[in-house]
């Protein structure tokens, strides 16, 4: 790890300890190695040449949800997420990344066709799983405890993805581009559909980005910067070629990728930089688009007096925190559901998903997540709405584990319901 940028980034850390107070992981681990300050110290030590065991450092850097809470609390504005991701990348070069991740990031994710095939294979395989659980959010299968973590449930995968359900010529070109993201395409096509139809309600012509490679975030956070950069470059090239006026993202994590992270993969001077800038300037979150495009004005007056305060909003770390888009979602939601929306207890607690963290340490991820939904439910919330694919995946699993009556939805589903209410 000899990276001048990294040194400049870590040099601002005053070792004050503020990050300990907000870290999602710290209450679980109760050790300094879990928090930003410790991880930064490890990277600094490695840069001084004190790294005895690169795998140990890699392990420590991997043990993080990249929720960014530390970064937002840090008085010195230390870019923790960037430091951790850079550190992971440098280490991945040194010790490599696990083989399964290499295949996934290198072969499957950059190709839109391959992800579709992967879903079909998974959907077929899923039928072999025992233990169906009907939940308010849809059917879930319970994983056998031996595989993938005790008590894990997975949503029933649909036979058809959202994109697949669109006619060939449908939504091929338009002034607004919808970036559905892989989860809302393949796992929850209903969300993809709701987002599409509500965006269309703006009266603008809407195209759906069909040539999407994976956004690259999973590869990036695992330290596989090459695969991530390939995905990112392909995406921004194709997006720019479509010349959209705005690009709408129903998923906060995807949005973060194109608003911010992409620049660390395609920095100034690289071929993709101009395309990335073009895309970043036009990328907007779903709720902001609703507010600015007049969609919400078309909603008939929301019903009053029904289910008062039962719908809450969960702040996706990256969308509300890093990108500061919390008020927009709330505003959109109140306009759509009226007094049924109320601020939810623990709204800004991280759901514990953290992308690959959920795979690597399911028990911890689910403890954090169970706390999240339990706090909300205890506060009277019956429907948790949000705007990030990871959060939807995680909280549906957590609801299935703790309280099958708890619903977890994307705000697009609520807006859709309100718009097209009979």
């Amino acid at each position, binding site marked *: 790890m000899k990276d001048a940028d990294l040194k400049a980034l870590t040099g601002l850390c005053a070792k004050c300890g503020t990050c300990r107070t907000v870290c999602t992981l710290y209450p679980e681990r109760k*050790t300094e*190695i879990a928090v930003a300050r410790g991880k930064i110290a490890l990277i600094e030590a490695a840069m001084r040449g004190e790294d005895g065991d690169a795998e140990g450092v890699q*392990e420590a850097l991997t043990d993080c949800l990249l929720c960014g809470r530390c970064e937002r609390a840090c008085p*010195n504005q230390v870019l923790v997420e960037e430091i951790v991701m850079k550190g992971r990348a440098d280490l991945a070069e040194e010790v490599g990344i696990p083989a399964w991740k290499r295949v996934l990031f290198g072969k499957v994710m950059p190709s839109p066709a391959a992800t579709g095939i992967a879903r079909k294979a998974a959907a077929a395989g899923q039928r072999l799983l025992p233990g169906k659980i009907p939940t308010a959010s849809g059917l879930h299968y319970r994983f056998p405890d031996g595989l993938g973590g005790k008590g894990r449930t997975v949503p029933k995968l649909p036979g058809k993805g959202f994109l697949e359900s669109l006619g060939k010529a449908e939504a091929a070109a338009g002034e607004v581009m919808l970036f559905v993201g892989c989860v809302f395409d393949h796992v929850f096509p209903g969300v993809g559909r709701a987002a599409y139809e509500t965006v269309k309600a703006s009266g603008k012509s809407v195209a759906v980005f069909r040539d999407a490679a994976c956004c690259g975030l999973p590869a990036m956070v695992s330290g596989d910067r090459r695969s991530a950069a390939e995905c990112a470059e392909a995406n921004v090239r194709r997006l720019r070629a479509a010349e959209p006026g705005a690009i709408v993202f129903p998923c906060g994590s995807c949005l973060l990728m194109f608003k911010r992270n992409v620049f660390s993969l395609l920095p100034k001077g690289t071929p993709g930089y101009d395309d990335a800038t073009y895309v970043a300037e036009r990328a907007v979150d779903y709720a902001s688009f609703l507010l600015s495009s007049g969609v919400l004005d078309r909603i008939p007056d929301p019903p009053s007096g029904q289910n008062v305060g039962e719908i809450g909003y969960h702040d996706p770390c990256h969308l509300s925190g890093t990108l500061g888009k919390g008020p927009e979602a709330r505003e959109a939601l109140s306009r759509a559901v009226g007094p049924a929306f109320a601020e939810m207890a623990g709204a800004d607690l991280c759901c514990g998903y953290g992308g690959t963290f959920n795979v690597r340490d399911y028990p911890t991820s689910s403890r954090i997540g169970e706390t999240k939904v339990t706090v909300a439910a205890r506060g009277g919330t019956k429907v948790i709405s949000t705007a990030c694919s990871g959060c939807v995946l995680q909280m549906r699993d957590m609801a299935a584990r703790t309280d099958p009556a708890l619903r977890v939805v994307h705000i697009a589903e609520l807006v859709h319901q309100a718009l097209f209410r009979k």
Partner: protein
Amino acid sequence: MHADALSALGNLFGDRLRTSLETRICYSFDATRKTFLPDAVVYPVSAEEVRQTVLLANRHRFPVVPRGAGTGFSGGSLPVRGGVVLSTERMDRIVSIDTENLYAVVEPGVVTETLKAAARERGLFYPPDPASLKFSTIGGNIAECSGGMSAVKYGVTRDYVLGLEAVLGTGELLRTGVATAKGVVGYDLTRMLVGSEGTLGIVTRATLRLLPHPEAAVTVLALFRTNRDASGAVNAVVAAKVTPSAMEIMDRTAIDCVRAVAKVPLPAGTGSALLFEVDGTADSTAREADRVEEACRAHGALEVRRASDMKGRDELWKLRRAISPTLLQLGAVKLNEDIVVPRSRLADMFDFLADLSGRSDVRIVNFGHAGDGNIHVNIMISGADEDETRRAEEAVAEVFRKTVAMGGTISGEHGVGISKAPFLEMEVGPLGVAVMKRLKECFDPNGILNPGKIFLDEAAVRG
């Protein structure tokens, strides 16, 4: 460390003993940003485990360094001679809060704010408020006798410690103090332990005094042309028999520093600022705030702002809170001192610091707790220029000499640790040092607890 010692610790702690280089690196630093690697880290959950650790340390002769959150500014929790860092992070229970007799019993790893919030929920008040209250621990606060903004009215940590349970360097478990408002039996061993920086005993439990929570608070920000005007206002407020719960000062260097990065609108010519807070009942705070305002205007305040609601008060505190974080933008290394002078000498000290900054050609940023005469003197340097570093170090020594000459003290909050060890004798004299060393012998005859601190240890100071 000897393999036998490590295996004995392994038997005691299981997976709560960590010896990987990665974990050791994470316990090698504190907010001084100096680093010393420990040989191992342990996470006890009970006083008995702490006791067993110290007994093993006596048998195998390894140092034990207690550590709370590692936010100290004087290197207190750095394992300068290796050994075991004993982290209190997992001894973090609030054992009880007695709402009738107004005290709390807590484990040392409780974060200060957690206790303040728990007391608040019951209408009670734990006043100590170091700026690090969100992350520093009660154990660390006790060991450093931390103070904060409200020290001017409410005193410091020492004033709230009624009794302690601590493991001495011998491995004996000592209980000191009382759980009553009064108690005068024998020597005050509680006070002996408070501020002893983990060198006499490891606090495993504390009984802390609570007060009823004040009903209301008002914040007043007053902006002045010079430090002299502001210092005059501080003394006038005191003379007007008002005891604010905070009285903070920022000099021109600190204001410039905040201005450079944060947008806080200030009138032209602002060269000094005072921030007051008064608390009590709604009536009394309004009256006291009036008097504070009068005193400030009488001493040439350019502008006075005032707020009594949460949001408005937060807005006024912004200026003060923005300082510390913005400092690192001025230089990679900050020599952070926390001298105290008699309140009446504040203006003289500020003049001296301005002059010193010019003479030694180093940037000095000053702010602090004016009410206590406590000034945070921050010398900002690049760390890359040897001559600059030497000039800065000489400036620090000069500040200390001047402080002692004015009848002040070289540390109001941060403790001696390793940073101020070279200057200990300058303040307490040779007999003072000798008596302190004798006391250390009595609590910790084998020098197990936090060696290399307070008393000069050349190797440790150099880092």
